[in-house]
């Protein structure tokens, strides 16, 4: 599903190149649950953003479902993105002016999904996350865990093939974090959605099938998790 070859990313500052990613080469297959770990500043978010097409690598090759992302034009890339990728952030990044239902609806609007289908999918999501009663509330009226559930619902509603999550539980208490992780595991196992998450927690990483250890922009380790949890 994802093929990275020799990905490099650096920022040039007064002629000095500061590297964030170096020689990153890896592949992620459909249905995998990958955790990216590493100390702060290692380049985890950058790697995730590149995977999610939010940033471009300075060098290297990136193939997503057989398409060469680097050479795609803007319109095609947005198309690819809308159809296959869902993002979840540590800071939730919900739109403050929109209600829960509207936040979930937004990606469908950009994808031009017809009204009746939109309504049924939103109802589905609200149902699934037990949020029917909260559908008309605004993000600041929800707890952090609830906000993150909305964030995940928003990522899922467009029926992506992959979910990219940047420290999704970083702002949450462990009970809520556990709930989110269970959810990811279920999505991965029952619906076959590929999941790539950045995390600091060994516990969270253990939910996945594979861990990439990143240090100073280089993949130091690529281990398969034995399913013991």
């Amino acid at each position, binding site marked *: 599903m994802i093929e990275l070859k020799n990905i490099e990313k650096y920022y040039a500052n007064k002629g000095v190149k500061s590297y964030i990613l170096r020689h990153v080469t890896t592949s992620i297959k459909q249905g995998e649950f990958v955790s990216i770990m590493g100390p702060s500043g290692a380049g985890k978010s950058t790697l995730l953003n590149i995977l999610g097409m939010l940033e471009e690598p300075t060098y290297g090759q990136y193939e997503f479902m057989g398409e060469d992302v680097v050479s795609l034009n803007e319109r095609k890339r947005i198309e690819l*993105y809308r159809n296959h990728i869902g993002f979840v952030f540590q800071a939730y990044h919900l739109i403050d002016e929109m209600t829960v239902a509207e936040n979930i*609806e937004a990606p469908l609007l950009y994808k031009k999904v017809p009204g009746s289908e939109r309504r049924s999918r939103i109802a589905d999501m609200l149902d699934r996350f037990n949020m029917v009663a909260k559908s008309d509330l605004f993000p600041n009226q929800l707890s952090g865990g609830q906000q993150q559930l909305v964030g995940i619902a928003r990522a899922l509603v467009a029926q992506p093939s992959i979910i990219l999550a940047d420290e999704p539980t970083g702002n949450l208490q462990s009970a809520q974090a556990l709930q989110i992780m269970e959810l990811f595991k279920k999505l991965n196992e029952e619906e076959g959605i590929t999941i790539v998450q950045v995390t600091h927690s060994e516990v969270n990483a253990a939910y996945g099938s594979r861990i990439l250890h990143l240090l100073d922009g280089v993949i130091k380790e690529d281990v398969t998790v034995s399913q013991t949890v």
Partner: protein
Amino acid sequence: MFKLNLKIILRSIWKNKISSFINVIGLAIGLAACLMLLIYVMYEWNFDKQSKDSANVHVVMTNVLDDKGKIFVTFNGSTTAFAPLIKREIPEVQYISRMDYGNMGLIANGINGFKKKSKFAESDILKMYDYHFISGDPKTALTDPRSVILTESTAKTLFGTTDVLNKTVKYQEKENLKITGVIQDLPENSSNRFDYLMPWSFYEIIDEGAKDLNWSNYSFITLVSLRPDANLDLVNKKIDELVKRNNKQISQPNFLFPLSKMHLYGKFEEGKSVGGDIEQIWLFTALAIGILLIACINFMNMATAKSEKRAKEVGIKKTIGANRRSLIVQFLAESMVLTLISVIIAIVLIESFIPVFNNLLNIEMSIPYFNSYIWLGLLSVVLLTGLIAGSYPAFYLSSFNPTQSLKRNVEGKGFFSFSLRKVLVIGQFCFTIILIISTLVIYKQIQFIKNKPVGFDVNALVEMPQDGQLIEKFELLKTRLLKSGAVTTMYQSSVNLSHHGSNFTGLEWQGMPQPENKVMFNRVGTTYDYISTNGIKLISGRDFNKKYASDSSAVMVSASAVKVMGLKKPVGEIIKMFDANFTIIGVFDDYIWDSPYQSNSPMVVYFNKVGTGAITMRLNASNNLQQNIETITSITKEINPSYPVEIKFMNSIYAEKLTKEKTLGILSNLFGGLAIFISCLGLFGLISYSAEQRTKEFGIRKVLGASVASLMQLLSLSFIKMILIATVLAAPIAYYIMIKWLDNFEFHTTIPWWIIVLSAVGTIAISLLTVSYKAYRTAKSNPINALKYE
């Protein structure tokens, strides 16, 4: 999508109440002021353009040459002989009509008489102006010499109805005229207004001057309508030749000038139009655009100030699949909605303030709802304002990379936007300070002219027109009024004390430097008690006196007349005018009778029993004013029953001379005030936003021990700096503009340094107040509140 967008737009407008309020109210006031000024500009612009064929109608102008053959005056008067000749000889002429300048004449239904504006004209005028006839036939309405066309309101005043066809009215107590038509009232912005219109053929019956076909009396107006395909230059060339061939003695060439341009381009130099009131129109247009710009700047500044928050929104939307176009549409739609709300409020504002405005400017305007240009204009204002205001977030922010905008990296890139914001605020306050300085200078100039002595005591002095019986029975009136005790002294004269025109050059005196006098003198014909009534200062000699029979050929001259004539011992000298000799018996000090802004022509006041037209009276100061006026009114009415009594106070006549500048003063006051209000509103918005942004920083600083004063300084210093820069920029510009304006007046005030300092200090004080209110509130707030949220 659109519906949801609109819902969210309205929701976020509601959520950001302060900034929305500032945007909407500021823009609404700006739009209202701008539209109000533009309606006024349109009113002036449409002068004499209402009738269908107005573009073809021209007025005959006359150039007056001096002895060197140079044109020194151009005016819109023409002779009686001109029209018949032109009509016969120039095929391009379609219609032609001679008219008089219009007068206030008595018109009566039985004993019910009113003084209303009359006009005489030839019947072609009905073809040039498409008057709307309520009754009567335009083809025949002016055929019979003893006919009259009334306007709707004249008919209503006289008869209480417009159903008055074929009824009879009495003109000037003498002539019975049959009503042959009633037309809709004429628009205010027309040069040839009247309350009733009579045929030229009737004018020829009652006025010698109109009947006499000559080339010397320029007391008439001639309107000429050319065929649409006519070439004006060619026609003017033909007229020139024709007039020169038929009028050997006099060399004043005539030419046609478009009537629709007279009002705005009516200032002539050497026979060429060099502008006129159009300059004022440009000024007002600039003011209108300036005010709107100030409001738009607020709008834009609020948008850029909020860009950080908007950037995050852009980032989120992009990560859930929005493309750039949809974001641009969203931001533009948002600012259009705000603009639209502002326009609606603006229309409400205009509707409620237009009566006040009309009152101030003494005009009659309304929102021309049925004018498609207005709607087109409004629509383009909405689109343009919305576009300008929304363009920054729409085009700039939407271009950001989503991860950059989410990481709040915009600040670095925002350097440009921040300095742009500074420039805009400086520009705003520059404009405001210029307006404030102008207002103060205009005020000072009006004060200066007001305080300049007019040369006599204007208080307790009144005048009235010498109409009807008052001409023949003046002596009776004088005896009765003096006996009544209401009046202490009075006189009659050919013109009012304050008058315009009545100039002539045909004056001769002993020891003239040239055989022919070229200097314009002003003349006033009067009899006894001139000086003793008006109180003008006698420098030497005496007033006319019944004791001296020889006073029937005596004259008093002004000090400037003595100077022009170069007389060493003026009293006793003999001067000659209209082929008669007059002996100078007195010299009086110059007084203001025409424009208070420049020195008036030298004046001669000569003894003349038939010089009638105005009666001037000094009221008895020991009586109650109201009582005096009542006494005068009842005695005058008794002697001259057909005419209304129109007593005017000299002090208000002199106050009226300042009307135009007062209007300018009011307008600059009003719009200067609005400008500073809108600018401060914008400033308040910016500082509130900046305070909101820095709540956390302030909280931390306070925890670390910062004082309220130092926090306030932190927040307001940069704003105050901008105002200071604006002041430094604005002062010289305003100084230059106002020096140029003052140059228009021969008598003018100076611009003292304190006006500049006052405006600067005033503006800074007001903006300081605006800024520090918010800064204080922010600095005083509890740091825990600020830090509680992550």
